[in-house]
């Protein structure tokens, strides 16, 4: 199976190939170094990934260990260096981050943030990952936060670097991800003078953060950084941006760090309601007792609150099936008998049908987004709605509700479990039987078990299902945006909370690879897959170098249809086949992987899918599988924008997709 570059070039198109990784899959040698051995054999090409066993490899390994600061010598020397000089603002920032239990930050140096980079080496417990573009830093911190539940931190300089973070910050805002973004700014005296790389970045991030700060005095830094973390993670999480002037980073200070109590006391305007009101919780129990066709809708809030156990117990006790939003995936083990499926625009037909027929909706930690409801006027017409959310502003924003409950999902569901009655199996049986019938019908209609679509190329749903199976449904799957995102949501089969990461609210193409980078570092115990289309992959392709330099084990599943698939689908269905700008050229991704120095496989046939996934999964470091998928496969069913959940398009062009 192992082939050299030359052999591959001469081989039949579409033949699966490996660089070094095949050997790695067989467990013979560590694959990543072997990859470059192949490169070295192919000719006089220079690679920054040294070959195995060479002195250079050892030097890099040593440097890596030192970067990870496993040695006590490094710690001692760093402490000595700190002891020889005064404590400055930049030290305060790093100390404050470390006090929050953060072990990694993603960043990119530049002029006014350099004082911070100047002291980073003196704080060896904090690992810095050098990204290739600041957007990657923000997404990586976002992926780290989603995978771990901890606050993710990204770092950039002023001006263009700060504006590059903006997309990632907005992404975290719309998906309620705890993030602290730190930027440098020009010295305070130059603020407002249009100095080099000066932009009013706090003015830019103001409407898209939970809160932001501009700090000009190092003595404020301990309080501000502590507040930033507290605000980011407390209540409904979200991003907080801290902009620090260069002179504040350099200013000497002995300001002490505040305690958590002092931080909370200093924020009288920030008191999130956590426990639901007992009277409202009793009202839910009454609604549940009366309902004949109830359904629970689980959102991101269930996962953020760590309420998956309470959710399962509630479903089991009341025998109510659970549907989930895009970000609610993983809130319920999909193999559970009461786990019903993914809802919304590209959700399962049976799930949307159950919502439209329900007489009670118990919505937990979700916000009735337009991708979930479609036309609100025709949404769940028979249902009374119970809405549990930690953010009071979400309740009554998009749909009018009968029972509003403000509180943390874990606390409210916990309280509800204490008062809700157990439903008799027989009473619920006819309803559940009806739902099971709908499910059988809908799942049967949208499944291509054979693996090949009608054009003979790979069927994307088959590929995603294979990734799920090959990783025992335990890997962290990070989706990009578009068709790939919907296939990942529908077909992988999730068993574990936080095993599915997706850019939901903002829909940021290019999210998958950098976010997977953060997720892989946050959860090194789980295999991490970035699943992208060829469009999104090319948007943040520069982060491949970061994966290689820090040997971050992200497996990339590239679903290549040589199209902007979702755009093409809309053009086919909504814009009468006017395919403008949806065809897309891509590079030879095998050569690309070679150039970066990591193993890759190309797959065209269904029987090659599983072995390639398994081989990629065994690589120590990044790897890529290039799936050539059907060019014109649609994600169906689909709810056209402006229509309701009852108006799904299920087939197109007279053929089942």
């Amino acid at each position, binding site marked *: 199976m192992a082939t050299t570059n030359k052999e591959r070039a001469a081989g039949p198109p579409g033949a699966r190939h490996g660089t070094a990784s095949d050997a790695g899959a067989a467990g013979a040698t560590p694959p990543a170094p072997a990859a470059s051995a192949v490169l070295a054999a192919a000719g006089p090409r220079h690679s920054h990934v040294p070959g195995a066993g060479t002195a250079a490899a050892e030097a890099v390994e040593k440097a890596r260990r030192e970067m990870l600061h496993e040695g006590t010598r490094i710690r001692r020397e760093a402490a000595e260096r700190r002891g020889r000089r005064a404590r400055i603002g930049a030290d305060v920032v790093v100390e404050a981050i470390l006090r929050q239990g953060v072990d990694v930050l993603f960043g990119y140096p530049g002029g006014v943030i350099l004082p911070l980079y100047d002291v980073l080496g003196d704080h060896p417990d904090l690992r810095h990952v050098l990204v290739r573009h600041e957007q990657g830093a923000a997404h990586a911190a976002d992926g780290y936060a989603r995978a771990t539940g901890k606050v993710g931190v990204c770092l950039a300089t002023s001006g263009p670097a700060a504006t590059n973070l903006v997309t990632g910050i907005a992404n975290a805002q719309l998906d309620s991800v705890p993030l602290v973004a730190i930027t440098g700014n020009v010295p305070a005296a130059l603020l407002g003078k249009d100095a080099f790389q000066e932009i009013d970045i706090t003015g830019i991030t103001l409407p898209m953060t939970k809160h932001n700060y501009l700090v000009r005095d190092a003595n404020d830094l301990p309080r501000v950084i502590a507040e930033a973390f507290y605000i980011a993670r407390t209540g409904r999480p979200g991003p907080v941006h801290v902009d620090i002037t260069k002179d504040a980073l350099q200013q000497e200070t002995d300001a002490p760090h505040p305690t958590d109590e002092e931080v909370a006391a200093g924020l009288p*305007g920030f008191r999130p309601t956590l426990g639901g009101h007992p009277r409202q919780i009793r009202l839910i129990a009454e609604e549940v007792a009366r309902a*004949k066709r109830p359904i629970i809708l689980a959102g991101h809030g269930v996962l953020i609150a760590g309420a998956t156990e309470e959710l399962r117990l509630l479903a089991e006790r009341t025998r109510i099936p659970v549907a989930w939003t895009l970000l609610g995936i993983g809130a319920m083990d999909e193999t559970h008998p009461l786990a019903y499926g993914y809802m919304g625009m590209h959700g399962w037909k049976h799930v949307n049908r159950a919502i439209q027929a329900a007489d009670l909706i118990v919505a937990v930690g979700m916000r009735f987004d337009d991708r979930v409801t479609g036309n609100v006027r025709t*949404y769940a017409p028979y249902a009374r709605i119970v809405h549990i959310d930690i953010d009071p502003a979400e309740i*009554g924003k998009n749909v009018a509700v009968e029972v509003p409950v403000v509180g943390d999902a874990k606390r409210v569901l916990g309280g509800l479990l204490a008062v809700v009655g157990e439903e008799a199996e027989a009473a619920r049986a006819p309803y559940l039987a*009806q739902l099971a019938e709908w499910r059988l019908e809908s799942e049967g209609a949208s499944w291509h078990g054979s693996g090949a679509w009608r054009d003979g190329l790979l069927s994307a749903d088959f590929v995603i299902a294979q990734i799920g199976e090959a990783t025992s449904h335990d890997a962290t799957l990070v989706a990009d945006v578009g068709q790939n995102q919907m296939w990942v949501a529908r077909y992988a089969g999730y068993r574990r909370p936080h095993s599915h990461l997706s850019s939901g609210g903002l829909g940021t193409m290019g999210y998958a690879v950098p976010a997977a980078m953060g997720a892989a570092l946050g959860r090194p115990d789980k295999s991490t897959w970035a699943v992208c289309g060829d469009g999104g992959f090319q948007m943040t392709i520069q982060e491949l170098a970061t994966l290689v330099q820090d040997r971050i084990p992200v497996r990339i599943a590239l679903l290549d249809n040589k199209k902007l698939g979702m755009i093409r689908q809309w053009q086919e269905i909504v814009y009468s086949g006017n395919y403008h700008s949806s065809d897309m050229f891509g590079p030879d991704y095998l050569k690309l992987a070679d150039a970066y120095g990591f193993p890759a496989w190309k797959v065209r046939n269904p029987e090659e899918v599983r072995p390639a996934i398994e081989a990629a999964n065994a690589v120590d470091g990044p790897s890529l599988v290039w799936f050539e998928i059907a060019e014109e496969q649609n994600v169906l069913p689909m709810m056209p924008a402006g229509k309701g959940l009852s108006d799904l398009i299920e087939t197109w062009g007279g053929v089942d997709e």
Partner: protein
Amino acid sequence: MSPDGTKAPAHSAPPPRALPGTGEQRRHVLVAIVNNRPGVLNRVASLMRARSFNIESLAVSHLDDPEISRMTITLRADDVLVEQAAKQLYKVIDVLKVQDVTDEPTVQHELALVKVRATDRTRGELISIVEMYKARVVDMAAEAVIVETTGTESEVDALITLLRGYGIKELVRTGTVVMSRGAQSIEEATRR
């Protein structure tokens, strides 16, 4: 619908789900107590703009306690939308308290300064109108006077309509400020 209610209803057209709010627009007055920090006004204004709330008037001043400020925001919208605006305002970290005082007994006043053209012939007439409206003349020059008036929005409107006949050279209004009648205090409630 099946007799036991467990089966899905037959497909008859159900009534459309009500959208949040009645759509009935009226004037609302919100009082917000906020931290007196740089940028707070920007946060409030930015939020109202981003969520498409149209502010009719906005008055800001600091309180007896210089650490905090008070904003009086008047806007035209339906009740549910205003409730949504208040909830969104609450999410701003620097906002300490928000109260919709529209339906409470309140004193609502604004102050206006009007520079009116005045000649020897019209000055006496002007002054008598000003006195009748319990306003006062605070500056007098050869060709103009400045009239200062306080009162409800409609009282100020009425005086301005009358003065318009003489020629208004310049007009400034503070926007409504409001205080609930009785002993209760939003400031004291904020501190608790």
